[in-house]
């Protein structure tokens, strides 16, 4: 029989009131604002995380390099960096490389080396590959993450970036000095890892090209989704379920050309009984999406915010097993796991509502950035 050490709290003796937290803020007019508000929004939700992961995605932060892919990379050590940079220098023309500025602080420890590169695909390689620049970059990111020891590209979009770490989100925000960046869209995540390790690469957001995902929940369909998406060249290397949603979004939006609404109808497909009640044309379309992409139905509880160039989409699982509220004020739209988080960013709201399960909330910036 298993002996329990005396000093270990047993089930029922300890309560960890956690459950992940997400938050997002976007200006519909494309007005840029600092990361201070979004960092503050995570404070009342502190107890939803347990200090094993926090992160942010910011859109519009690199206007001087907006035509370059901004590659954010974690390295275990300098020898990993040497290996990875050999690959990067072969495959990209890099106009600037630097250590991402961070604050030394006691709350964030065991930091990897954190670098960023502003880059475009190396011309001859790109021509030879006959790929689009986006596809070329996506494949390079997948190769680094799957094949190069101790190197993880955790952000690879243009004029946007993901910033993440092991720690509480409000500390992670200060660690990366996000109050010094200005973005038209911020998303944020506080992590309470349930089944998988809390490590730097496993913190949210998960980003590929311009897509980023923050997620509160747990995907029951992870392996079914992973098996399907890996048929198309993606590799799930980061040891946590959320990664697969990012690849699903990239696959459906960029490769299959689906709209955001259609993508929502795939990953949070309505029940057949709900589809039957829709008008014939809509029902036909929903039946088509559920049938063709049945392996991309994401089951289990989730609330997510998908960030993309020029906008965001917030979505709950169809049973709404995680909370999510939306607030609006003037040009701003806010999304969060809790109303309190929104009230930090904007105490007075024009409108506050809870979208239904599977009902996407899509916000686009009016002018292209």
């Amino acid at each position, binding site marked *: 029989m298993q002996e329990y050490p005396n000093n270990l709290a047993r089930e029922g003796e300890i309560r960890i*009131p956690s459950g992940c937290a997400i938050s997002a803020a976007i200006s519909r007019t494309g007005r840029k604002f600092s990361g201070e508000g979004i960092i503050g929004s995570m404070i*009342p*939700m502190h*107890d939803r995380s347990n200090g094993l992961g926090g992160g942010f995605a910011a859109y519009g932060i690199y206007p001087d390099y907006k035509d370059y892919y901004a590659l954010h990379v974690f390295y275990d050590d300098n020898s990993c960096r040497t290996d990875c940079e050999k690959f990067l220098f072969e495959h990209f023309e890099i106009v600037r490389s630097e250590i991402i500025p961070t604050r030394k602080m006691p709350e964030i420890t065991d930091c990897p080396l954190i670098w960023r590169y502003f880059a475009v695909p190396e011309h001859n390689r790109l021509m030879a590959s006959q790929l689009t620049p986006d596809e070329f970059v996506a494949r390079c990111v997948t190769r680094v993450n799957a094949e190069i020891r101790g190197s993880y590209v955790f952000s690879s979009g243009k004029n946007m970036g993901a910033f993440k770490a092991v720690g509480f989100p409000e500390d992670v925000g200060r660690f990366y000095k996000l109050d010094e960046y200005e973005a038209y869209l911020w998303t944020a995540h506080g992590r309470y890892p349930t089944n998988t390790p809390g490590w730097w690469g496993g913190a949210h957001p998960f980003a590929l090209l311009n897509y980023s995902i923050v997620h509160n929940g747990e995907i029951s369909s992870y392996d079914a989704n992973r098996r399907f998406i890996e048929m198309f060249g993606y590799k799930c290397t980061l040891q946590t379920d959320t990664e697969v949603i990012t690849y699903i979004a990239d696959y459906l939006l960029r490769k299959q050309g689906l709209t955001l609404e259609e993508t929502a109808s795939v990953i949070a497909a309505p*029940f057949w*009984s*709900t589809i039957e009640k829709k008008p014939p044309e809509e029902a036909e379309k929903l039946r088509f999406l559920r049938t063709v992409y049945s392996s991309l139905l994401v089951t289990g509880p989730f609330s997510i915010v998908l960030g993309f160039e020029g906008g965001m989409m917030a979505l709950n699982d169809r*049973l*709404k097993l995680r*909370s999510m*509220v939306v607030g609006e004020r003037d040009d701003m739209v806010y999304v969060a796991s*809790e*109303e*309190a*988080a929104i*009230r*930090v960013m904007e105490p007075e709201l024009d409108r*506050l509502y*809870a979208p*239904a*399960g599977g009902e996407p909330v899509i916000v686009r910036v009016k002018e292209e950035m």
Partner: protein
Amino acid sequence: MANENSVKIIDAKSLEFSALNDIIRESGDCVIENALGQRFIAAGMSYRSIKIKGTPGNALGAYLNGGTVEVFGNAQDAVGDTMNDGRIIVHGSIGDAAGYAMRGGSIYVKTDAGYRAGIHMKAYRDKIPVMVIGGRTGSFLGEYQAGGVIIVLGLHTDGKPIVGNFPCTGMHGGKLYLRSDCKNVAFPKQVTAKKADESDVAEISGYIKTYCELFGADYDALTDSEFTVVTPDSKNPYKQMYVQN
């Protein structure tokens, strides 16, 4: 110990939830200002009048055992989780899973409720929990309801249906009232939804009166309208599923 007759004002700004609850526990009646996401406010407490300004956090009044909690704003998820007695009044909306497994007392909400309001509400002898929602509710209203009374008044003005999908799934006790003819609502097979008659409405007139007093709605107009009352077909639908009992 503070004088029970005085009303203490507590500024919750930047207070962590356990610190705030410690202060409440040491106070008698109190007014909490600047609440912002603190969880478990008034959890397990009795005999107090607690007024809250701001946005209280999840599990407000969980295991509440008496007294009154009044929120001048919206409340988040799991309001009145497993509450046993007392009253929670929300001058706004409430989040998901309100009144989860509540077994006594009452919850009055001025506007809307989220998903799973009244999930697994239960009653025993004189303990009859009551939830009155002024606006509309999300899906799975009264899921696994085993007892008590849920009333939805449909005073919302956003044009959405009074209830989302799958109300009363797994219901096997209690009563659920919707101020609507419910023509477009699909109920599960194991419940009976019928037009409420005079005696049905009379049973809940006191609760509606309380709602009107709290939030200033028109009692006559409300009680004159059509209600649908939902009850389970059998008190024990699972009677012979496992063993004879």
